[in-house]
């Protein structure tokens, strides 16, 4: 795509020039740098030639992007890939794409697609669209510029409870939800991530077999926490390793992949409690 500097040219000459360039070899659009105020008339040109219109002010320079609307979208089907395969494939693909390019990721696993969507911003991407087509879920991602991170104070108002112990360690299993309740009572937003043997806690029927002398049965405590808005994620790989599927999990829990876990850990607003 042509990128042109046309500084010092005022409207309407700037628009005349741009139109001439588009008509004579730049049908897919142009990126043109103009002096402030010279962008007058460009929107109508974009409309005339079926181009999108985007404008960005950089100091005294205006950057106008007029680009063909029908961006060709690459497709990547990650069906059948074992976690963390899907996120690795998408991450690798995104890293080689140019800013503005798009990719449509599909999978028969809606959890894999949601996992990818959650972690997209971490991979210099933006979710454009997400949904289902037939028996597959999809997400359309556009490559964005890598944001320069600026150090800033972050209010740690979230708590992430990570549990790798299962119902075989009752005391730790209970701690997952006791700490969650405590955090909720302090006004914190709470997320639970169960991995490795921790996923056994979420299997239907398992928690009901665990009883702490001082508390109600574990399944009731878990339900109470979930009913109060805590999202409980279950590691997809750990669950599969134990022969568990989403249907085997208690209501209110959700399969998630490595990318979701890493995204949660990377969020500076989270205080992380690890068991």
């Amino acid at each position, binding site marked *: 795509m042509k990128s042109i500097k046309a500084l010092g040219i005022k409207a309407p000459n700037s628009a005349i020039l741009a139109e001439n360039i588009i008509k004579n*070899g730049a049908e897919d659009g142009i990126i043109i740098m103009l002096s402030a105020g010279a962008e007058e008339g460009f929107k109508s040109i974009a409309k005339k030639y079926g181009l999108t219109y985007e404008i960005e002010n950089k100091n005294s320079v205006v950057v106008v992007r007029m680009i063909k609307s029908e961006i060709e979208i690459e497709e990547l089907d990650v069906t059948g890939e074992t976690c963390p395969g899907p996120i690795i494939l998408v991450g690798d693909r995104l890293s080689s794409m140019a800013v503005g390019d798009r990719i449509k990721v599909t999978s028969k696993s809606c959890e894999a697609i949601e996992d990818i969507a959650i972690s997209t911003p971490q991979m210099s991407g933006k979710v454009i669209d997400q949904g289902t087509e037939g028996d597959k879920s999809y997400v359309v991602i556009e490559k964005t510029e890598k944001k320069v991170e600026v150090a800033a104070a972050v209010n740690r108002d979230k708590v992430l409870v990570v549990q790798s112990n299962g119902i075989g360690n009752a005391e730790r299993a209970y701690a997952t939800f006791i700490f969650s309740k405590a955090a909720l009572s302090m006004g914190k937003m709470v997320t639970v991530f169960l991995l490795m043997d921790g996923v056994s806690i979420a299997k239907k029927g398992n928690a009901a077999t665990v009883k702490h002398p001082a508390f109600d049965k574990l399944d009731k405590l878990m339900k109470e926490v979930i009913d109060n808005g805590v999202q409980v994620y279950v590691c997809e790989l750990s669950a599969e390793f134990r022969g568990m599927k989403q249907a085997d999990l208690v209501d209110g829990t959700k399969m998630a992949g490595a990318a979701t876990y890493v995204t949660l850990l990377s969020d500076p607003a989270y205080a992380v409690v690890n068991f």
Partner: protein
Amino acid sequence: MVYEEMVKELNKLLGLKGSPVAVKLIKSADEIPKSYPKMSKKKRHCEFIQDTRLEGKKGYATAQEHLCKGGAGVMGIEPLPESVASGKMYHQLGNYETTEGALETVNAVPKLEEKYYASIYSPLESAKFEPDVIVILLTPKQALRVSQAYLRAKGGRISSDYSGIQSLCADAVVAVAERGVPNMTLGCSGSRKYAEIADEEVIMGIPPKNLAEIVDALETFKEKWGEL
């Protein structure tokens, strides 16, 4: 592309003085076609254009041969001198009331971002390379016909921009090469003085891709309107 026949037609239709000039910027010496010598004298880019146009000279010029550092600078052959880049030189020459005004223009002059080793010049009819730009010096009436010819296929308007400095280099070569559409310029003080661009002449830079349709249109105009 072979331009010999097109140039013959162009001369017949317009009555050009001298040849259209093929100009190409190259990144390494490997790209210099055989039989194209280094220019024997240090001259300005606009002088190379004139020598090629009027005397049929052909050759290439590196930073060493480019006398005008402003011209070589905007074409990416060497860094733009600080006195030019800052606008100071043009302010001192009297073009601008203030240094700020000079800088406002200098910042707007088309400049190539990429670096180049040399520029190559040849009469278009005998060029052994594909030019980046074709530079033609015309009378205003001839320029009118070329403009009309360029627009005949698709209509619209021509937007030409210039600033009275860096003309045959920035306006006629860099702007056209970068944008892919023709540009017309009135020259500059330097080109009028040193390259002796005639008072009655204007300069057009044309993308090579448009030459064939321009010639076709000029032929149609001749049929419809008679001789120029």
